[in-house]
């Protein structure tokens, strides 16, 4: 087995990412550029010998989530996500995100979705953050406060707090 780092001629040398559970994932150099955190961490390793393996510890991200992040970054190299620039308004999620792969990618269970949001924020991957935030926003669309609390498993406000919040925005219905 070769001891030299795996290199893809197009994507550059591979970078290894280590998750919270110490599991290692490989990421091409081109894909790694999407993350400003990885970029900064890599700069610290500039003086190291090129033949040595570069392992970046992403201690705050679990394996299940990091795997998804790597998958996103690798795919983004070949098919960049179209910028997401506006609120949902009358459009559905599918009308804003027209790329099928990304629609499927972010269609995951809620806990994993929130982990992806946090990971994207931590690793400073803007396209992934935009996509995941949009998916979370889609959960809130056209639903009452009660329904959203149910879906997101959030405790209720006290009746007084909720009544105050309702009164605060009654001005919206002025003629």
């Amino acid at each position, binding site marked *: 087995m070769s001891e030299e780092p795996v290199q893809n001629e197009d994507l550059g040398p591979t970078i290894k990412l280590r998750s919270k559970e110490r599991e290692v994932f490989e990421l091409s150099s081109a894909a790694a550029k999407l993350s400003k955190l990885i970029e900064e961490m890599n700069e610290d390793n500039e003086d190291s010998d090129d033949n040595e393996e570069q392992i970046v510890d992403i201690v705050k991200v679990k394996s299940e989530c990091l795997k998804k992040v790597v998958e996103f970054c690798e795919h983004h190299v070949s098919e960049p996500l179209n910028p*997401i*620039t*506006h*609120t*949902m*308004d*009358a459009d559905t999620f599918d009308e804003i995100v027209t790329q099928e792969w990304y629609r499927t990618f972010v*269609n*995951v*269970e*809620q*806990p994993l*979705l*929130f*982990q992806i*949001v*946090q990971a994207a*924020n931590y690793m400073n991957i803007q396209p992934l*953050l*935009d996509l995941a*935030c*949009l*998916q*979370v*926003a*889609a*959960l*809130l*669309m*056209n*639903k*009452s*406060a*009660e*329904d*959203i*609390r*149910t*879906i*997101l*498993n*959030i*405790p*209720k*406000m006290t009746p007084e*707090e*909720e009544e105050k*919040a*309702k009164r*605060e*925005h*009654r*001005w*919206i*219905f*002025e*003629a």
Partner: protein
Amino acid sequence: TTLSRQDDTYIQTMKGQLKNDGCNEDSSSFNSQHSPTSSTIENIPNEVLLSILNYVPSINLLLSASRISRQFHCAIKDNVLWKLRLKALAGSTRVPYLKELNLHQRQRCCLFTEAHCRGVSSPSKPGSNDGSGNDGGSDIPGIAAPKSLLLPRDMALHLYNQHKCVALSTTTDNEGENIENVLPSLNDINGISFSQWGTYWSSAPCPSGDPGASDEVLLFTTACPNALISEVAIKPFTEVNWQRKTYTWCGIVISVYQSSEETNDEDDKEAKNMVGFPCVILDNTECDSLPPGHRQSRRRRRTAPKSNLIKTVLSKSNCRLVYQSQQYDQEFKLDDEMQTYKLPPGIVGNMVTFTLVGKNFRQFPTSGFYACVDRVEVKGTPLLRHARELEGLEDVKSWFV
């Protein structure tokens, strides 16, 4: 997006809860039944929550998201959220003109602008979205419908007699053809009246109709201290009594100004802009001198020009130009339809001018060139400083119907 499947009890209870409004489940018992899975959204940092909320339309934020939890409620009251949202809607070039708005005004701006980006204009009935399963979904509240921002004509004439002007024109031909006639009237009569006198504004005659040599400026103040202006309209006047003639212009330029109460002018005695309900211009100046050779009719006295007053008002240090359109050329000289001009989003001000460039027609072959206007409209939404600003001002409220 699939839901959490970690707890069957949670799922079953949730399905029962989601029966629309007919659900008999007691919400407090529901909370005690579900598995105490920690709410992962509560672990999300505030700046990330703001990123999520950035994609939610303003109507949903204010109506339902603000009532989800304390975390959401606080996030929605964050000025940063609304500053960024307004910047995205209006464009970064407008940011310097919007930075003085408070939270409530920003919310109004965003609500109104998003509604018009969608092209929806009809208001819903008040209260229809309270507590329903679809609050803030597809209905547009009344606050998002464009309203007239001009003072009604009768009120304007009443103020004019106190030397407080809400409308000015560089020239006026005769008394009775004053600029206040083009303001909205609460008592508009449909149908044709015998005389058109008192229903339009006419410029003074001009020997030339050339652009630049015969331009007129019509200035209107808003009925509120600050307004988000979304569209303006102007209707040329057609004379029908003597001859059928429409006194149009060659082109038009629309400008919006914002006048604040503070002024750095040491000598502010002459023309003074007063910002309030409504915004008025105190006309304590001496009348501009009438041009030489001016002939006064015994029946209809010619009105002195106000061009100097307009220039003074617009050049004051507390008055800044917020927007100026390109020149729109009058395609059809005889067109007397209402011409509507939509403004880009984020135009906040309290004075609008219409510069009528050139004049197309003489009244008679030997007379001068005239421009005449039947009606003017300035529409948008008043940017009240807080939700209760109009409490106790019932008369003022009626101006914005």
